């Protein structure tokens, strides 16, 4: 699925890379200072038109192509200049609004996303609809001049910092499930919205639950038309699948000196906090061999076999992904679609890595915390890996996708195509 925003920005040839870099360089000479506050600097950036050069000219951008925008980023990175607020769900919000919002909505929301003034969260999943996202049951009903919303959301990253939410809710129960959903922009700072942290089995609380009770949304905050929710959500999900780079400073922000960097590092730390355990969730393949050497388990023939299997799978997956990417760049589509297969590979690899770490540690794997192996990293791997085959679409869903879309095997029979009102669902959702 192509990115709605990048599509919008790719118009005409415009200035050359050199022209762009000269212009932005001069502008930075005049405006950039490490002594500015983050918000003051980003306001300058937005007003100067350099905040999001790939965006349309009407909305803070310059309608630059991907290459042209990259030329701008290059200069920013080279000079260690802090960019706009990019990390976390704000990016999902800006791209979705840019793709599907009306002018009023773009005017009201986009600027504060770029400056970082307002933070966002995504309100899609529910306890009763995980793999079956379109089966969600949060209700939005017109009541006089407003939409009244009731329901419960879950897996909401950064919801406790959010000012606004991207809300998917059911507005029509008589249509088939995908057709009865609408997409709203909801004010999180209202009494009907309660955010509670959701602790995971590994002790982290990267997500929240959000309880919505008679929360209100103005009609002007319906994104797109009523019933268009699923189509718009697809945009948000496709951007989410691209992942996000977090720090766009090329890593330099970590070491640069100046007040704005301090502020930026704080912002980044908050934005990245939910993801600190993600490398452990992936199994820390990088540590498998060193750890086996450290404990001496490398001398065990079983461990060698399991480690070799792990390294083989990792190598195969790396090459397969790189080959697919290279083929995509060169316009050759012979290669098997990489997304779901890569995700499935990541699950298998993480589980094998966890197995190897277990074998390499032996009884030491009973310990946890900073005093345990590799300052607790091994223990965190062991209790985090179960998440990788669930988050972002379970392995089962990936296998459905692979078998149906890649291998073209027949679809599962469906039991949820009639009016949503009549579709069997979880007791709690009725």
């Amino acid at each position, binding site marked *: 699925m192509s990115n709605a925003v990048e599509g919008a920005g790719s118009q005409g040839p415009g200035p050359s890379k050199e022209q762009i870099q000269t212009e932005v360089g001069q502008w930075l000479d005049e405006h950039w200072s490490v002594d500015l506050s983050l918000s003051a600097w980003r306001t300058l950036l937005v007003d100067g038109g350099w905040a999001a050069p790939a965006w349309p000219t009407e909305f803070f951008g310059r309608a630059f192509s991907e290459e042209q925008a990259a030329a701008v980023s290059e200069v920013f990175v080279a000079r260690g200049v802090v960019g706009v607020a990019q990390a976390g769900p704000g990016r999902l919000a800006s791209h979705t609004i840019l793709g599907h919002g009306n002018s009023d909505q773009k005017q009201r929301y986009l600027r504060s996303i770029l400056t970082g003034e307002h933070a966002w969260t995504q309100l899609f*999943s529910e306890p009763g609809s995980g793999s*079956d996202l379109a089966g969600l049951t949060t209700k939005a009903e017109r009541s006089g001049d407003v939409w009244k919303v009731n329901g419960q959301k879950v897996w909401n990253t950064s919801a406790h910092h959010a000012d606004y939410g991207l809300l998917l809710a059911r507005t029509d129960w008589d249509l088939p499930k995908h057709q009865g959903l609408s997409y709203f922009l909801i004010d999180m700072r209202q009494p009907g919205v309660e955010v509670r942290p959701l602790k995971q*089995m590994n002790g982290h609380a990267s997500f929240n639950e959000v309880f919505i009770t008679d929360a209100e949304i103005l009609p002007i905050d319906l994104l797109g038309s009523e019933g268009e929710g699923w189509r718009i959500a697809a945009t948000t999900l496709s951007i989410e699948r691209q992942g996000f780079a977090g720090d766009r400073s090329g890593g330099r922000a970590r070491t640069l000196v100046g007040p704005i960097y301090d502020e930026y590092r704080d912002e980044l730390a908050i934005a990245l906090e939910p993801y600190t355990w993600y490398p452990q969730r992936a199994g820390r393949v990088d540590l498998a061999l060193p750890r086996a050497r450290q404990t001496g388990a490398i001398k065990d023939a*079983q461990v060698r076999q399991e480690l070799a299997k792990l390294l083989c799978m990792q190598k195969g997956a790396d090459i397969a992904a790189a080959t697919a990417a290279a083929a995509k760049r060169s316009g050759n589509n012979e290669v098997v679609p990489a997304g779901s297969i890569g995700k499935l590979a990541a699950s298998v690899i993480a589980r094998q890595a966890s197995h190897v770490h277990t074998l390499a540690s032996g009884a030491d794997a009973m310990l946890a915390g900073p005093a345990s192996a590799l300052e607790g990293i091994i223990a965190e791997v062991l209790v985090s890996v*179960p998440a990788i085959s*669930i988050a972002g679409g379970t392995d089962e869903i990936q296998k459905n996708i692979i078998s149906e879309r890649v291998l073209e095997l027949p679809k599962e029979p469906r039991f*949820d195509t009639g009016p949503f009102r009549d579709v069997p669902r979880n007791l709690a959702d009725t």
Partner: protein
Amino acid sequence: MALGFTEDQRAFRDVVARFLADKSTPTAVRELMVTSTGYDAAVWKQLSGEVGLLGTHLPEAFGGFGFGPVEMGIIAEEMGRYLYCGPFFASAVMAGYAVLGAGSEVDKLRLLPGIADGSTIATLVLDNLNSPDQVGQQLGATSAADGYQLSGVASMVVDAQVANLMIVAANTPQGISLFEVDPQAQGVAVEALEVLDPTRKLCSVGFTQTPAQLLGEVGQANLDPLWGLMSTMLAHEMIGGAQALFASTLDYLKLRVQFGRAIGSFQSLKHRAADLLLELELAKAATHEAARVLATGEGDLYAPNMAKAMASDAYINIAKQAIQLRGGIGFTWEEDTHLWFKRAKSSEVFLGTSNWHRERMMQQIEETADV
């Protein structure tokens, strides 16, 4: 001894299960696992007094009930099922069997009645939990004027934080020996450790010229049979836990609806459940067989190794699937699945990995063949 359980044994299991279902609820487990002692003293008292489980395996002459590994296995299995938090495994199983195996009559008379009635909470201090062959590398004993002195560190000791008796395996010039140590004695340092599975507390235990009393004869501690007994009981604990998780997961599959149908109607999940049942049934059979072999002395010497390897693999596979099949909900702290998952994970490496047990089994097969 016949296959399967007698009616008495089934009735005994019911008693144990009812007690634990009442006392060791997930709520109780969650409360206890964050305490420093890790157990409920009142429940411990009932366990020893009213229900009388702690001396099940000990001869009547030493205050026990004179039953064997089959009955002890029943207790361990139910404790695993209900995720019992407390020093049963450390005191009754580990220390109890250690004293029973190595102690002299006098030692047994002195130590076992307390273990049987619960007034003594003992633990077995091993400086290695991977293999009996590696025990004794970190702990040494030297003979002193009035007995022995111990020095060294055992990096992981189960439930040492509540032990008032330590049975310590240490090396001597004559070989590995077992010693009795008072945790209050000079030079004993007990330090609680952060653990992956909070339902099984671990401490490091250090000794510095700590006075110790020899049990039985010096250099005569044969850890292999003891390891077999402990592994067999651990295997029971594991199949108990595996059954609990399997049952709760089946319930979830029947209840949870996605795409307009119970997810348990999806064939890939149904077949996975069938695969897990097969693995569980084979592991259960092998585990109960190990108890029978130990009780009768008849059968394969390596039955405990088979049991530990199979129970361990079955438990961890079921635990992984218990989370996976619940999706995101299964990864939350609020859901109980992770409590069993972590017990599965710690049991997987406690007293030797599956690989180690299989290798041990093959060694025994080959030794037998060489004779």
